[in-house]
């Protein structure tokens, strides 16, 4: 034994505090992330959700690439494409992998084209939900009193508003809304309603803990305390509500389109709608090869984010973890 002191206990080897701090800060975040990721990956449902989201992500990315290469505009454009070589609607075949609908649109092309708007709606809705619910919930819980009463009454009002029906009315009235705007509208309704109520109750728990008082005694302003001590404890729950909001928003969007209020972008709801409408007017019966892909896509897309939310829920509430 040349070296009687194990390296880990030899403090003369310790790096200077500044270096260690910087290294350790980022590695602390990284370790936290790895720990959380490990918990997430113990849940098979969550793994399924992550895989599904990855597949949809690939679909969204591959669409412009495929359009530029193999899916030429003349035959495959989801709006204007028409293939004169086949009789529409055509069943799945070598030229059109998922067939065409009665107006000659390529089903695969439409399916892929609708993926990106779905992500846009989901992203807009989830971010809006997270920001609004965190702001309202934390403000209400931290300041209490009149502010709390006021915000809770607003949240109650939004809670009673049925989001899908409201979205149908909005979609009917404003037919030129893009995916981002629709996502924002949904995010406001979902965020200011149920999500705010839950975020507020979580924030109430955090605000009552003595380390908040300790920060106040240190001289910390309300903004400092909320930013440094309250918000980090809200993140897992905010992430959970973001996922639920994606599901809600995408389903609502499909819902509007299914009622025939189509807008200037393609989505799966429109495809489902058209599989019924044109086929019945042309007397060809329900086009199953047009109906099934978007139905599956919509369900799986919504389910994927819900599956991930199940895992995040376990992360936010450790009591739900299976030992």
């Amino acid at each position: 034994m040349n070296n009687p002191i194990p390296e880990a206990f030899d403090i003369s080897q310790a790096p200077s505090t500044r270096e260690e701090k910087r290294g350790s800060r980022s590695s602390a975040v990284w370790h936290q992330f790895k720990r959380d990721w490990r918990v997430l990956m113990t849940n098979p449902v969550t793994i399924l959700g992550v895989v599904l989201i990855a597949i949809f992500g690939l679909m969204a990315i591959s669409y412009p690439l495929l359009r530029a290469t193999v899916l030429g505009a003349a035959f495959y454009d989801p709006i204007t494409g028409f293939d004169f070589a086949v009789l529409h609607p055509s069943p799945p075949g070598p030229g059109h992998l998922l067939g065409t609908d009665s107006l000659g649109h390529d089903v695969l092309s439409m399916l892929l084209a609708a993926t990106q708007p779905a992500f846009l709606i989901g992203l807009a809705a989830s971010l809006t939900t997270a920001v609004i619910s965190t702001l309202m919930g934390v403000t209400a819980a931290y300041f209490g009193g009149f502010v709390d009463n006021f915000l809770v009454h607003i949240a109650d009002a939004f809670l009673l508003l049925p989001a899908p029906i409201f979205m149908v009315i909005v979609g009917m009235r404003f037919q030129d809304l893009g995916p981002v705007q629709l996502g924002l509208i949904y995010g406001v309704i979902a965020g200011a309603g149920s999500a705010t109520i839950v975020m507020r109750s979580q924030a109430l728990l955090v605000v009552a803990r003595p380390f908040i008082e300790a920060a106040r005694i240190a001289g910390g302003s309300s903004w400092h305390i909320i930013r440094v001590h309250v918000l980090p404890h809200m993140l897992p729950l905010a992430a959970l509500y973001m996922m639920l909001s994606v599901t809600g928003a995408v389903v609502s969007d499909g819902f509007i389109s299914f009622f025939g209020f189509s807008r200037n972008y393609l989505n799966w709801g429109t495809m489902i709608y058209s599989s019924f409408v044109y086929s019945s007017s042309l007397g060809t019966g329900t086009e199953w090869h047009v109906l099934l892909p978007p139905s599956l896509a919509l369900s799986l897309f919504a389910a994927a984010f819900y599956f991930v939310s199940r895992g995040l829920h376990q992360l936010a509430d450790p009591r739900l973890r299976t030992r």
Partner: protein
Amino acid sequence: MSNNNDKPLLRVQGLKKYFPVGGGFLRQARSFIHAVDDLEFDIPMGGSLGLVGESGCGKTTTGKLLVRLHEPTDGQIFIQNEQGELEDIAHRKGESMKTFRRRVQMIFQDPYESLNPRRTIYDTVAEPLVVQGIGTIVEREERVAALLERVGLTPATSFMFRFPHELSGGQRQRVAIARALIIDPVFIAADEPTSMLDVSIRTGVMNLMMELAGEMGVSYLYITHDLAVARYMCERIAVMYLGKMVERASTEELLANPLHPYTRALISAVPVPDPRISRQAIDIKGGVSAPIDPPPICRFFARCPLGDDFCENNPHPPMEDKGGGHYVACYKV
């Protein structure tokens, strides 16, 4: 500060805190919990006061009032400023409040809850310096490291960037002590800092607190329900009952010669580690009641073995000096 030894560091006059019961949105509360009612005491420079009483008597509320976590309903809290003058901080707000925060700190009861679990030990201890804008990052780190070593967390480098859950209860409370001392306060309110700790490490933490307070010239209010702890830690002891202070004296005087019937009952309830000594038990009746809109007579009347018609028909007795700074609030002693 040579010319202000005669002045107390902290002086409390007529301090009151009433919590409304039941009120709400656009609705005035009808009744109030008299959590702290008309307190009066001084703490000298470098001195210590033990605040003793049963659960719910207003000890913690008093501590939180002194560090201004609560806004007093009424009364004054004077504290010496840096020029040695007494300043009333009872209703301070804003920027001058932040300066006051440098002078007064608090140590909490539960070391598991008083440290933010998502912040490193360095973040927690340095927080007062950061929010007060004291020093550069390098200076803060040196100061935190030095203080961590001083509170017994050595080597500091191995503790600074750990998280609270990696520390034991005693280590956490040492971190809490370091956080309270990092900005050189003149006064600390310690709210039962050892009651959540394992018995075997209590004395260590108590000794550390006393040593550091002596070294750094910090006065402290030590809140506890344990007379033995108060005796160990404090020069003087004050006894509270239902929001009122009933007796205040130097530690030895109070324990040797308790005058108020409540203090006597408290002392008689402390177990004596010698089976041959038999002590006369003082009986008090009933249990402690909630101090919601209490009648204006002596708070202790309902349980007092000495109470009579005079007590029933007169207001709560004032604190009276029975000689040598031994104050008692009772008509019958």
